[in-house]
């Protein structure tokens, strides 16, 4: 049997992968094993330690290197003779224009953000190249196919926007821990360590129209006679003490809300601060969630002038500790439950939780979809007759015995025992007609449906008109290509090809979406039926679940493994010509 992954279509295909991370590593491996020989891969990132739990092509020694390059080298080790072209670049670069995309048979996305996905979607539409989209987070995964002219594009379904919060909630009236994190990260951290000239809402008070610093002096500017420790305590007192007192003075704000408590460093600090090598330690919150008076010693790594332009990086341990501590102090002040360093890091860093298994499964599904380019037949629709199509393609190549051939709702031909006289006459006449002159004209762009009910085989064949054929290589004047269950052997007259069981799933006229959903809720989430989101996880990994249809397995809460049927045609209903 001509195995699918040695098919010439796969061998000749040129594939573009966007992303060499969690999905990318699994995908590249599976593509290589499946017989793809020309793969291009774009990724602008470098390897980090936290990648290694699932991006198995990378090792500890590769940390810091380009993902695209290392992934390529790793796969060449077990498939040395294929071509993998890596690009350590941003897919939004102008180099990757429509012309670039046009060279590929299919584009496979393994991205982690909405913006890049949109960008790729538009380029694929412009280049008229099919796109297989995918995403995973935790145990949830999804694969969708977008082919211009046949299915909706990626952006046809609205995607949820990333969560944002009103400014006054952050600056004045936080009620959740995440508000404190945003305050600590985007306001306090940014003000202290970031760009001095950047606008910052830190001193904005909901009732105060004026934003100018008091006494014309910038509170955050370190004074000449101040050492680090003094500076630290002063800032501490200002943001956690003074600012709160000022906010409290506006009674309106607190009519229906719990009043926050100002916190001063003298109340919480021990006698002296910790010093280390002359650099004052950053504050570090303990994990003691029950203690309101979190012991914190606020210090600075370096005065702002020397750093100038630090932005929060979740992999900077000190930054994470600082933000966690600041957020927890603020939370304590406002009566919001404290969080551990681990939890805070996840929220502040927009960390997407991830495991290897989900990515492996999704990668498998992506490759299946990539291989399933729809069956298409190149044929001269003005010269070839229906009879040729039936004998040479439907019976010989596809191995159907009792085929039914339809164009939309029109039955062009069928074989059966219980047919009426006039229908038989109709079909006999049709056989002798050229395709373009059939009652329902079959021309370039037509989609024919060919079925054998007994074999439980259905195929959609996309007709492409072609004028000339090579007399030697293509004596029949017809070329069939694409995914089919029946082996596409060049027919041997003695060999009878038996159709295969199961239904076909080729690309659809309307929606081409296949979704596999592995549902798991982690400890913190509540379960009620078919739920998902873990609180505190923001970022772009939200999945579009609008198309979810039948579930084969009832989920009764947490940790269900649910596999969905394709929400599409399994069997087209037979429509009789009236």
């Amino acid at each position, binding site marked *: *049997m001509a195995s699918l*992954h040695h098919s010439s279509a796969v061998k000749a295909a040129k594939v573009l992968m966007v992303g060499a991370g969690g999905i990318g590593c699994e995908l590249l*491996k*599976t593509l290589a*094993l*499946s017989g793809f020989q020309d793969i291009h891969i774009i990724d602008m990132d470098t390897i980090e*330690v*936290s990648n*290694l*739990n*699932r991006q198995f092509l990378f*090792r500890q020694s590769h940390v810091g290197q380009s993902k695209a390059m290392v992934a390529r080298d790793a796969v060449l080790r*077990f*498939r040395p003779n294929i071509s993998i072209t890596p690009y350590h670049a941003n897919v939004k670069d102008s180099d990757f224009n429509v012309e670039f995309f046009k060279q590929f048979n299919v584009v496979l996305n393994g991205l982690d953000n909405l913006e890049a996905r949109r960008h790729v979607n538009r380029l694929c539409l412009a280049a008229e190249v099919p796109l297989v989209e995918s995403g995973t987070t*935790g*145990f949830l995964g999804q694969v969708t196919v977008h082919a211009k002219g046949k299915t909706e594009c990626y952006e046809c379904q609205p995607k949820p926007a990333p969560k944002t919060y009103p400014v006054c909630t952050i600056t004045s009236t936080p009620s959740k821990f995440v508000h404190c994190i945003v305050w600590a990260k985007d306001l306090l951290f940014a003000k202290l360590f970031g760009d001095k000239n950047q606008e910052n809402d830190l001193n904005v008070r909901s009732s105060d129209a004026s934003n100018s610093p008091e006494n014309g002096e910038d509170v955050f500017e370190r004074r000449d006679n101040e050492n680090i420790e003094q500076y630290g305590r002063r800032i501490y007192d200002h943001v956690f003490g003074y600012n709160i007192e000022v906010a409290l003075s506006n009674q309106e704000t607190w009519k229906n809300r719990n009043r926050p408590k100002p916190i001063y460093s003298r109340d919480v600090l021990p006698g002296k601060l910790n010093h280390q090598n002359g650099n004052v330690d950053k504050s570090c919150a303990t994990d003691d969630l029950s203690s309101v008076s979190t012991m914190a010693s606020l210090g600075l790594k370096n005065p702002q002038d020397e750093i100038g332009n630090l932005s929060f990086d979740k992999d900077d341990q000190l930054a994470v500790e600082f933000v966690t501590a600041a957020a927890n102090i603020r939370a304590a002040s406002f009566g919001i439950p404290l969080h551990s360093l*681990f939890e805070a890091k*996840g929220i502040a860093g927009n*960390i997407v*939780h*991830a*495991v*290897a*298994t*989900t*990515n*492996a499964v999704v*990668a*498998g*599904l992506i*490759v*299946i979809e990539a*291989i399933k380019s729809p069956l298409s037949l190149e044929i001269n629709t003005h010269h070839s007759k229906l009879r040729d199509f039936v004998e040479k393609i439907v019976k010989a190549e596809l191995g159907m015995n009792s085929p039914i051939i339809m164009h939309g709702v029109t039955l062009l031909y069928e074989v059966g025992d219980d047919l009426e006289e006039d229908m038989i006459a109709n079909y006999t006449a049709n056989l002798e007609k050229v395709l373009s002159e059939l009652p329902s004209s079959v021309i370039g762009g037509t989609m024919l449906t060919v079925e054998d009910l007994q*074999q*439980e085989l259905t195929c959609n064949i996309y007709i492409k008109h072609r004028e000339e054929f090579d007399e030697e290589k293509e004596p029949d004047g017809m070329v069939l290509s694409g995914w089919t269950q029946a082996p596409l052997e060049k027919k041997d007259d003695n060999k009878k090809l*038996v159709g*295969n*069981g*199961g*239904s076909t*799933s080729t690309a659809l006229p309307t929606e081409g979406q296949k979704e596999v959903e*592995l549902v*798991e*809720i*982690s*400890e913190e989430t*509540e*379960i*009620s039926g078919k739920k998902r989101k873990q609180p505190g996880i923001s970022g772009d990994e939200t999945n579009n679940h609008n198309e979810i249809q039948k579930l*084969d*397995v009832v*989920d*009764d*809460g*947490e*940790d*269900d*493994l649910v*596999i969905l049927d*394709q929400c599409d045609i399994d069997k087209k209903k037979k429509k009789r010509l009236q």
Partner: protein
Amino acid sequence: MDGEELTEQETALYDRQIRVWGADAQRRLSKSHILVYGMKGTVAEFCKNIVLAGVGSLTLVDDRAVTEDALSSNFLIPPNENVYAGKTLAELCCNSLKEFNPMVRVSVEKGDLSRFGGDFFDKFDIVIVSCCTRMTKKLINEKCRKLSKRVAFYTVDCRDYCGEIFVDLQKYIYTKKKLDENNQPTTVECELQYPSFQESISVPWRKLPRRVSKLYFAMRVIESFEEAEGRNPGEISMEDLPAVLKLKKELCEAQSMNESHIPNALLERLVMGKREFPPVCAIIGGILGQEVIKAISGKGDPLQNFFFFDAMDGKGVIEDISPPNV
């Protein structure tokens, strides 16, 4: 800090997955011992997944030499003959797997698994068998069941574009979070009872619901054929097809089931599909990996008790094939 805590190295490496299943589950993983038999493509995928997950140890058994078929779907085997000559599949896979996670002890065991005694299997928490005759599956399953500690048993087989997983967790107790009447989170204890492989496949076919996956029956026919002919698993080809179809007819008669219930076309695919299809290996290996992680961590509803996948129609189905009293 007691010795039970995860090390700093582990926390850094496993950060993203700890956010999924928690530190407690991660600790349990690091103490678990897995035995795997039959290093085909799907099993290679499974091994990759659980090594990355951070299990305590993984022991591989497969004394076979490298073949073309093995190279085609197993990415753990270096294709260089100078490298693989003289080594068994288990040895080659072991070397590759170690690289994925230095914290996992990966090793090789040689010999005929069906001859090992109960004390051997007692060393493990999880046993996975693939490329096995029906007899061997039953035998090893029984040995696991006889032990006083619970050893979870799985079989996995992929042929053509299809895959099958079987799960036996014996008596399995685990906790789940649920919402009570007041919408407050609470934990409930669940108990599941699993039949052995023998018990499961002995359920008369006509007693099973009509919609049960045809792949289940087809796999049993192939299994029966290989057993009757004394073949090694997978040692079947086009020439055998007429005999297989004949056997199908006989089995269906014996089971009082209409023979058209098992499509000949499906049997043909399974007979001719010698090589595994890499995307199916990835899918089945991924799902099996997740099942094992669930069983070790005690979190999440485990699959009960068969799983089938066919890339042709993209359907993944869970079937519960148990005798009525279970």
